[in-house]
């Protein structure tokens, strides 16, 4: 691909924040008609580099050339004029407007009396069609799935005739088929000579879609590679700076035998909720990790939410250690020593404006009620313990939660639940959107806790994670449990995929 014209050339870019060099003499080259992945752990400088390119940050030294001319970006508007468009992980569109209004916002076709809506929507449709997106421009944006919204955001970028498209974690909340749809659009844009900068935590996707890769580590450039020349393990070691593949070092847990004689911690019979999950049975025993496999919307999240009481169930019964209980609110569940970590870390997990310490202690405090405050000494002890044992960084309890990276926020949430000494821990996508190092640490921690007797329900879209950790796997599809089996060594991802697909054909 290197024969293509260079569109963006960033040379010796340095950005310094008070006391830290976020980028240190980094070079980055983007060519037209290529999909270029930017890789690195959280905090490697990916986000900073993107923000320098899109005009959010001003650079301290170095040069940015776009199509040969040197540019200084004083703001995002400058970068947009230069033809650089960005679609962020959290889509920044107006959900209360129509699709067409979103696509054409600021570029409406004028008519005799204000805006000519017919022409505007027609034009929006052409842009959407170019990407193969077939939606009614007059429909509300909010009525479309996240994936479609993402494609609409990209269409919007096309309206301003961008030459460079920055996609920051576009796939993190998409399911497999939606990712395919996005990739089809990306390939189409590539063939139209748009340069695409792609950031994703999913290495599979990086290998599937990209032509070039640039790896950053600790604010420095590690190197630029063609996709073919670097194996996955080489890539990971370049990102981590160590030769060890962390994830492989976690032994497969499948072989551990679970004593299923006594009462299970949790026994669910016929539990369901209309429009969420059909009546389902499930047992979890001491020390057991039950993995949920299934696509987004398969009912995996819906099921655990109903169990925990985050959503109300319509029918069914729950027994905790053989005793029939009602878990209709999170409070009841936490009284029965059941903890639940939501898949939506930002909206349902962290308390951003409170400190790390306050976030960790919140679980215990909630159990105690407001009258009996967790004493300073006790809080310090608990917080120090988890910061150390989970290696939360920065190891400073008084920093605001919102300033932590995703992986560290997830560790804090894990600490919050563990501090309440649960007997059953429900983890919905605990490793989503966090870097490999933190992912490995969290997986290892879960395995360790289960070995010590904790029951775990583990949900992940990454099937290898589910297979590696669980002793039992529950497969869900279309809001139903379609299979449940004991995990064993020679079971692999393809078997699960086949299970899901087989039902689909019927």
């Amino acid at each position, binding site marked *: 691909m290197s024969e293509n014209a260079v569109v963006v050339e960033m040379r010796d870019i340095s950005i310094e924040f008070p006391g830290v060099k976020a980028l240190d003499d980094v070079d980055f080259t983007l060519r037209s008609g290529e999909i270029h992945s930017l890789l690195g752990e959280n905090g490697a400088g990916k986000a900073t580099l993107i923000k320098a390119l899109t005009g959010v940050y001003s650079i301290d030294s170095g040069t940015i050339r776009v199509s040969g001319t040197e540019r200084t970006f004083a703001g995002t508007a400058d970068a947009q004029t230069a033809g650089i468009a960005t679609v962020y992980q959290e889509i920044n569109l107006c959900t209360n407007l129509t699709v067409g209004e979103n696509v054409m916002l600021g570029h409406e076709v004028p008519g005799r009396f204000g805006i000519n809506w017919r022409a505007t929507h027609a034009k929006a449709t052409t842009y959407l069609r170019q990407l193969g997106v077939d939606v009614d421009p007059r429909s509300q944006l909010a009525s479309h799935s996240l994936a479609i919204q993402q494609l609409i955001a990209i269409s919007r970028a096309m309206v301003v005739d961008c030459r460079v498209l920055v996609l920051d974690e576009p796939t993190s909340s998409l399911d497999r088929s939606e990712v395919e749809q996005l990739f089809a659009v990306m390939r189409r844009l590539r063939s139209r000579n748009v340069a695409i900068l792609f950031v994703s935590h999913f290495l599979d996707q990086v290998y599937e879609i990209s032509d070039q890769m640039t790896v950053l580590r600790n604010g420095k450039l590690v190197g630029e590679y063609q996709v073919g020349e670097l194996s996955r393990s080489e890539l990971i070691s370049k990102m981590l700076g160590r030769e060890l593949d962390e994830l492989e070092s976690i032994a497969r847990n499948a072989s551990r035998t679970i004593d299923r004689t006594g009462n299970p911690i949790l026994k669910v019979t016929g539990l369901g909720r209309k429009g969420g999950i059909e009546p389902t049975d499930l047992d979890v025993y001491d020390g057991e990790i039950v993995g949920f496999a299934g696509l987004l919307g398969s009912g995996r999240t819906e099921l655990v939410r109903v169990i925990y009481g985050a959503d109300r169930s319509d029918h069914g019964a729950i027994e905790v250690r053989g005793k029939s209980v009602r878990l209709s609110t999170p409070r009841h569940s936490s009284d029965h020593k059941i903890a639940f970590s939501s898949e939506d870390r930002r909206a349902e997990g962290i308390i951003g404006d409170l400190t790390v310490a306050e976030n960790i202690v919140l679980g215990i405090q909630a159990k105690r009620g407001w*009258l009996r405050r967790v004493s300073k000494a006790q809080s310090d002890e608990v917080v120090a313990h988890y910061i150390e044992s989970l290696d939360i960084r920065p190891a400073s309890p008084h920093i605001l939660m919102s300033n932590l990276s995703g992986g560290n926020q997830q560790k804090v949430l894990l600490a919050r639940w563990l501090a309440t000494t649960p007997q059953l821990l429900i983890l919905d996508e605990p490793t989503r959107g966090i870097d490999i190092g933190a992912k490995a640490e969290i997986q290892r921690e879960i395995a360790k806790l289960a070995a010590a007797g904790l029951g775990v329900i583990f949900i992940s879209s990454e099937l290898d994670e589910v297979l590696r950790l669980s002793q039992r796997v529950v497969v869900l599809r279309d809001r139903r449990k379609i299979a449940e089996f004991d995990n064993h060594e020679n079971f692999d991802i393809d078997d699960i995929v086949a299970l899901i697909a087989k039902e689909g054909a019927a």
Partner: protein
Amino acid sequence: MTRFFRSRLVWPMGALVALVLLNTISRPSFLSISVKNGQLYGSIIDILRDSAPLMLVALGMTLVIATRGIDLSVGAVMAISGAVALQFISKSTSPNRVGTVLIAIGIGVFITLLLGLWNGFLVAVVGIQPIIATLVLMLGGRGIALLITGGFITTITSSPYAQMAQGHLLGLPLAFFFSVGAIAIVGLLVRRTALGVLTESVGINPSASRLAGVRSRGIIWSIYGISGLLAGLAGILYSSNIMAADSNNAGFLIELDAILAVVLGGTSLRGGKFTLSGTVIGVFIIQTLTSTITFLGVPPAVTPVFKALVVILVCLSQSSRVRQYLGRIRHLRAAKPPIRLSGLETEVLAERKSG
């Protein structure tokens, strides 16, 4: 020292000091305190005394706002507690007995506690938006007060009741001790128990708090109860000052002053983090302002304009965008916009600090 300047309180504090300076320059007697019959007199003392009702109301408002709510009913609730207490005393055969007065206050405050809980019920259980839920009582409350007094302005003579707003203790106005007591009790209540941090948690992220097992419903409910109770006490003080239950004017528009005091103090209307000391400063700013306006001889009709000017100045000084702009002027070299630090950056920062 730098830490002091970075504190959120520095701006409201600065505004208060500036107001005091302005007053002292225009009338040197502003700061002077005289002693008559062992009691202190002076403009400052007046401010301490007159600010008591607003102080009580604003403390409650701070907590309500921290839960992402608002309590518009506080003025009407003041009218009700005054009406109840005075009606009780006026019907009693021994209005001058301390016992009678205490019972009257007790009934008045208890009823406003119930009214606060009613607000909390509408917000936390029924799920009505706070501004609408408390609007109900804001509009209906004065009617209730008039019903209690039979449509008249009940007046009484009861020396113990008059003492509360007009009496002195250790040379200082008794009302001031009500303020101090309320600040201390509310302060202890929120910071010595976990009520404060749980309230903040509910205000910052209600759904995460719920999933963490926080009884957010109970917390919101009790916060509105506290607000009602404090407003009730404020109503008692107000009626003790004029010795009449004036249902139409008791606490009229005080909800707006209270919200202002909270915001001036630096608590965000978006809820979450709150600062009681900020609110205390905010209340003093508003009270000093009122006294300044009176002294400067500004006609009452244009008083709101003057107040609005000061408020907009203080709010501007708190706006991060304006501060950023001022900061940029100060250091002429281009300053970077304030940025949210990523994990690595904070990490390195933290290391630098400790190392």
